[in-house]
């Protein structure tokens, strides 16, 4: 008896109606809940924004990586919005936190070379770039911060933004899709770092307009921001690699725009 299928091959689509941009709504909801849950855990020193930041920052980019730019941004947005009310101790400036989380997931979700959406990353890069220019420009021109201090205090974001704008963006996205766990970890960490830097620049432009911190704070930031980014790398690496390896292994359906 032949085993070859004799029936007509059918075109399979996700017709459940329960998907957004190719990501099942169940995934969006679950990951939003995870974002909210992690927002309860503070993990930093009190900074210029006025409070410690939430552990969920480590997975903002991950949601973009897993769900794609639209579904990832929606999931993060829902999770962060709820967290602002239920875990206000880590919310910082709520609106800014919300916008930053959405942009971070969107930016991470754009880090693939998918032909159809090859140019989407430019939106994130422009928002981050303009934000960064405004932030540094305002520091120098309005608040008299020296160029050196301003650059030093935002060095991580500058490097991150540059790596996002350069073709390294697609390389990191490609690593996330690698079966090699080391490359996968590097991909997750670097996607997190660069997309977070882009969103960070955008958010800082708003918070700086509100708080206008002086040169001394820039110098302090120069030492603190790398430590904070390191925490985010660790969270992203540990959770991200585990989740992606697990998802691949158990064969759950992959969201259409997911990078992994």
């Amino acid at each position: 008896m032949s085993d070859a299928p004799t029936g007509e091959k059918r075109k399979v689509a996700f017709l459940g109606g329960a998907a957004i941009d190719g990501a099942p709504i169940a995934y969006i909801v679950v990951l939003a809940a995870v974002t909210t849950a992690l927002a309860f855990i503070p993990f930093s020193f009190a900074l210029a924004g006025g409070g410690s930041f939430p552990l969920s920052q480590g997975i903002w980019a991950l949601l973009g990586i897993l769900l794609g730019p639209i579904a990832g941004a929606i999931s993060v947005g829902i999770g962060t919005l709820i967290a602002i009310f239920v875990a206000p101790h880590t919310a910082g400036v709520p609106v800014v936190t919300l916008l930053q989380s959405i942009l971070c997931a969107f930016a991470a979700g754009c880090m693939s070379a998918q032909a159809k959406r090859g140019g989407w990353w430019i939106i994130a890069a422009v928002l981050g770039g303009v934000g960064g220019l405004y932030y540094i420009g305002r520091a120098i021109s309005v608040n008299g911060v020296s160029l050196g201090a301003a650059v030093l205090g935002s060095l991580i974001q500058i490097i991150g933004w540059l790596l996002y704008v350069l073709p390294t963006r697609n390389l990191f996205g490609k690593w996330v899709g690698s079966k090699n766990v080391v490359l996968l970890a590097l991909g997750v960490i670097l996607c997190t770092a660069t997309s977070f830097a882009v969103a960070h620049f955008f958010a800082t432009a708003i918070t700086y307009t509100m708080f206008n911190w002086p040169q001394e704070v820039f110098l302090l930031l120069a030492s603190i921001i790398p430590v904070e980014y390191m925490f985010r790398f660790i969270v992203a690496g540990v959770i991200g690699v585990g989740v992606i390896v697990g998802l691949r292994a158990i064969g759950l359906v992959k969201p259409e725009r997911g990078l992994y």
Partner: protein
Amino acid sequence: MADVIAVLDKVSYKYPRSPGLVLRNISLEIYKGEFLGIIGPTGAGKSTLCLTLNGIVPQFYGGDFYGSVHVSGLDTVENPISKLACCVGSVFEDPETQLIATSVENEIAFPLENLKVPVDEIRRRIPRVLEMVRLSGYEKKSPAELSGGQKQRLAIAAGLAVQPSLLVLDEPTSQLDPVGAQEVFAVVRELNRQFGMTIVMCSHAAEEMAEHADRLALLAGGRLLALGTPDEIYPQVQLLEENQVRPPQVCSVFYSLRQKRLPVQNIPVRLEEGKQTLRSVLQGGRLLPPPAFPAPPAPHGTPLFSVKNLRHVYPDGTQALHGISLDIRKGEYVLIIGQNGAGKSTLVKHFLSILRPTEGSVMIDGVDTQQLKVSQLARRIGYVAQNPDNQIFNETVEKEVSFALTALGHSPQVVAERTLASLQAMGLEEVKDRHPLSLPKGERARVVIAAILAMQPEIIIFDEPTTGQDYRGARYILDISRQLHQMGKTVIVITHHLYLMPEYAQRVIVMGKGTILLDAPIRAAYHDTQTLESTFLTPPQAVLLAKELERLDGRAYPLLTPAELAGCFERQNGHLG
């Protein structure tokens, strides 16, 4: 010809990550009002076939789908799952994974709210479906407070509330104790017979399927091998055994007798028919005297476990154990049985010092377990819990098996050697790099057992090791337990699957309501059917047939298996068979 409710036409399917086709050219018609049983070994494609009926395959999983499935005239590829959900109710294996609401009535209302059913109509349907599954009066109860059988019936009620024309149940009783399984089968039969609901059910419970199903579909390797009534399918014992499917024991008995050319015209598939046929075999064949079974070795040596007047009361006031006393000696193979809530797991948890006695004592080698740390006991006692997933947390099978060895500080060489040996013993070498949760449940259980074996404990406790396993998987695990016993280990097994144990256990402890009802060698225990039934355990059909033989012949036949029963008959000289 009866009305057709679902049609599968040349259905083939491949999951996105599966190496090959999981379903292969399946064509099948399901008739309105019938109870269709789907049988087959693990990996046969039974669950996938069920998922094609509600569109989850392929709409949720993706993959390559060939052919067509129509349910109530709807093509399951072209219509959304939400629409198909109105025609097809689905109930899955583990009731715990299906219940999400905080009360029974909310659980039933949930799917209806999703389907935008008006509130008044939801209020009308809730009492109706609760009555159908015999859960009236439980409306305000939390699903978490229900027993396993009640939870599964609630899942069925939630499925029924949408008024489907077809109810699909995938192994709905495999996680339940005998009482729970009986409750579910009774409800499903009632839905089918009284309300005319079409039922499709996958199950390894051969005796129950023979009793309730109108037709059976035998699947193996994704192919539909046979389709017919239970009376047509189950007598094909050779075909079933070739495909690792266990027939009802009554079939095995009379198939063997027919092989011996005794007068068995039709192989019965149900117990009552078996008893009738037994009479005709007695008339036409020669019954040998009861075989002499060697007396089990008398216990000797000092007890390994010594339990004295053990009483345990849980913090909520539940009295789980009432003054239990027993000794288990080194090298014994002990089976502990009893209905859910009988106190089996509570007793075993005292061996591991996971629970502390409210009164009384548990000694291991003369030392009170309360004086030992759990970690000290863990080196001597391996515990395989009922749900393997609760014990799995590493990324690969190999890491899972080696985890405890590394944590205990063994050298890398010892870790590597013992890990390899354990993987080989459990047949897991080929999947050592896989994620444990990506394996089928049967193999996940073997991963946990391999991890325990690697620790080389002297006592191994298996808590419901055969739950959720097919016949082959269950036998595989029990064969390992026998090997361990032959190596001198002390083995304690808790199970509801009595038919599996005659070839393994020597001593049976029957528990009921926190007390020991019977502590006897396996033959005596299995033939004390009154005591078994008092704790809602059903003896294997071979035992019940042996009891019938005793009744007919007057002599005691302490038989346990179909082979032993068949061995008691010979052809009469000159009988042509």
